[in-house]
């Protein structure tokens, strides 16, 4: 590919961070779609304007989602990206791979697509960027033969994702990988055949550090936590102190609830004051650990800004045991979907529906008990609704 083709993008070959332009050029030498892709991007850089048309509906047999349709608005000039659809391929839990599996993916994509990918998309899927319509079914077939399946798109359950959890993290309070895989398998139909008012995302974090940003990016966040007191190894505390670590300043003073005291070389906890924020554990992983009674908090409603503002997920179950077969959790999810499906307007996320109809209706419908952990603070207005059965009739 001649350099002068993309003078603007060439500027992005400079600098220490790995350059996607260099890489795309390499790919463009082997694959004309990758080359047109880069050239079309150059055109956008010139025009300050996107050159993709409003998506169209494309897909593979038996699925309602998993492929995002994409057409260039300059098909003549850039014929190889005239049709340039992407596959969302469901990643294995925790984004672990054998090179064997990865190479298979690459081989499939070499055959049917542009050769360009995202590892990964921000929901968690592998994104295979750009294939013509005619290749879609064959590409899917090859993926499936190689043990891969599609993730979600459209008004369905989106590909669940999970932090590395017990595979490599001492903080994990739940088995994030197993839970993620189990839910993904249980809800294959919900992932593959859009049928709801809008999208629904599940993300699973092993502890309140929330390394998958579940609370911000999923309608349903499962976040590991514990119920009893965190565990302190006083000998290890001493070691930190001896190594010159400022326990008072960096740990005790930063505890949000002042639940810790450091006196006479001992770190003491007032268990009933601890809100399990993880800070002290993060700072002294050799000395502190989550408690023994482990489970997860369930939160609902997280989403980006369209339309009613961004919501952070909020607590609906402060603590649930998380053991296979996860029936209590699955039942709850089904009840939530049923209520949302019945009441939600088109393109209304579940959090927006709860905002519109009120938590009381949601809690009643899905059978959850109200607890103060659901709110930062109670209502400041006196606009309390009463169920007809709680009061008589006026007059």
């Amino acid at each position, binding site marked *: 590919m001649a350099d002068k083709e993309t003078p603007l993008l060439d500027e992005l070959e400079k600098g220490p961070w790995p350059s996607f332009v260099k890489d795309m050029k390499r790919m463009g030498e082997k694959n004309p779609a990758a080359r047109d892709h880069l050239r079309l991007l150059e055109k956008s850089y010139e025009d300050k304007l996107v050159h993709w048309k409003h998506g169209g509906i494309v897909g593979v047999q038996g699925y309602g989602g998993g492929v995002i349709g994409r057409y260039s608005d300059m098909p003549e000039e850039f014929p190889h990206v005239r049709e340039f659809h992407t596959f969302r391929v469901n990643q294995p839990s925790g984004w672990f791979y054998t090179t064997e599996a990865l190479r298979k993916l690459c081989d499939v994509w070499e055959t049917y697509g542009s050769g360009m990918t995202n590892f990964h998309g921000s929901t968690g899927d592998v994104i295979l960027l750009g294939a013509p319509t005619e290749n879609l079914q064959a590409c899917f077939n090859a993926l499936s033969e190689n043990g891969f399946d599609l993730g979600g798109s459209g008004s369905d359950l989106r590909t669940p994702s999970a932090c590395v959890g017990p595979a490599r993290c001492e903080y994990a309070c739940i088995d994030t990988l197993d839970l993620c895989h189990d839910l993904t398998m249980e809800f294959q139909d919900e992932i593959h055949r859009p049928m709801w008012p809008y999208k629904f995302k599940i993300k699973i974090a092993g502890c*309140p550090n*929330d390394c998958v940003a579940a*609370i911000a990016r999923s309608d349903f966040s499962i*976040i590991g*936590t514990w*119920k009893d007191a965190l565990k302190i190894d006083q000998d290890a505390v001493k070691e930190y102190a001896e190594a010159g670590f400022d326990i008072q300043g960096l740990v005790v003073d930063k505890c*949000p*609830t002042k639940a810790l005291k450091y006196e006479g070389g001992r770190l003491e906890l007032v268990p*009933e*004051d*601890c*809100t*399990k*924020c993880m800070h002290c554990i993060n700072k002294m992983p050799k000395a502190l650990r989550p408690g023994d009674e482990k489970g997860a*908090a369930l*939160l609902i*409603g*997280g989403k980006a800004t369209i339309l009613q*503002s961004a*919501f*952070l*997920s*909020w*607590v609906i179950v*402060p*603590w649930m045991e998380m053991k296979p077969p996860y029936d209590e959790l699955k039942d709850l999810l089904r009840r939530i979907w049923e209520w949302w499906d019945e009441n939600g307007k088109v393109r209304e996320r579940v959090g927006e529906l709860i*905002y519109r109809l*009120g*938590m*009381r209706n949601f*809690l*009643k419908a899905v059978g959850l008990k*109200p*607890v*103060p*952990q*659901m*709110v*930062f*603070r*109670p*209502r*400041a*207005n*006196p*606009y*309390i*609704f*009463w169920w*007809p059965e*709680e*009061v*008589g*009739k*006026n*007059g």
Partner: protein
Amino acid sequence: MAKVVAKTDIGPPHYSNMLPPIVKENYGKWAYHEILTPGVLVHVSENGDKLYTVRVGSPRLMSILMVREICDLADKYCDGYLRFTSRHNIEFLLTDESKIEPLIADLEKMGLPVGGTGHSASNIIHTQGWLHCHTAATDASGIVKAIMDDLYEYFVDMKLPAKLKVAVACCLNMCGAVHCSDIAILGIHRTVPKIDHERLHQVCEIPTVVASCPTGAIRPDPKRKSVKVNEEKCMYCGNCYTMCPAMQIMDPENDGVAIMVGGKVSNARTAPMFSRLAIPFLPNNPPRWPEVVEAVRNIVDTWIRDAREGERVGEWIERIGWERFFEKTGIPFTEKHIDDYIFSVPTFRSTTQFKS
């Protein structure tokens, strides 16, 4: 009808004509103050002058007979000057320290309590209630009397963790600072307005009635030349009744009071805070509203036991967390505590930080 003879727009009496000489002389020159005993303040001016204030609990609702008696005392001890506070207490302003004792003795004879300073329960800010308003869901003066009888010891002494500001409002209009009080007692309705279809189109304009509803629960009912109310959307705010007497919201069976807690107004330490729902409903039980009195007492007692020195009710709750507030007071948490009005979402707990 009397002839129109009066001058209009003269405005209130000029305050400077109402100030005792010591205040005039030291106006803007006060250096510091101290609380000598509960209800008795001394303000010392830059030039050493001392002004003694004796603060006296007032029922606010007073006959002119009582006002004149108070004037008698002010004449006797204060050269004919006095003031009222922003919480409706009476303040006697003295220059002669030796007169404090005799004044207090006279007040005692009249049955008027001295107190309300520092870490005490001040007078309850309240409203009209059944006594004079047409939208009242409860009475104000009666509840206030019953609660102040019960909290009396905290008015005449300063043994609370911090100031305690209680307010009563007799309907959702919330005349008074109910929405920002340490403890607020609020008259509420719980049923949909009863429409007087015959009368409605005679006394009200239908579009105005429809527009009055904040939740859009009211729709025109052209057949009846009236309106109808969507019962699921109505949250009994009474605004339609304020706009139209044919939307009767009063309901003796179901009206009562809610209790809200943790508000404050001052900017000291923490920013001003709204009061928040503690108890969604207690029945109207005149003449002494025992359930209400007991509920207030329980909250006050728990606060006293648990708060740190200087912590207002809301500051205490924010420190321990609302989950602990409900646990420690034994008040049940219900779906009704969860906001479902306009600004609800920011009140939902969007963190795993909570106490189990």
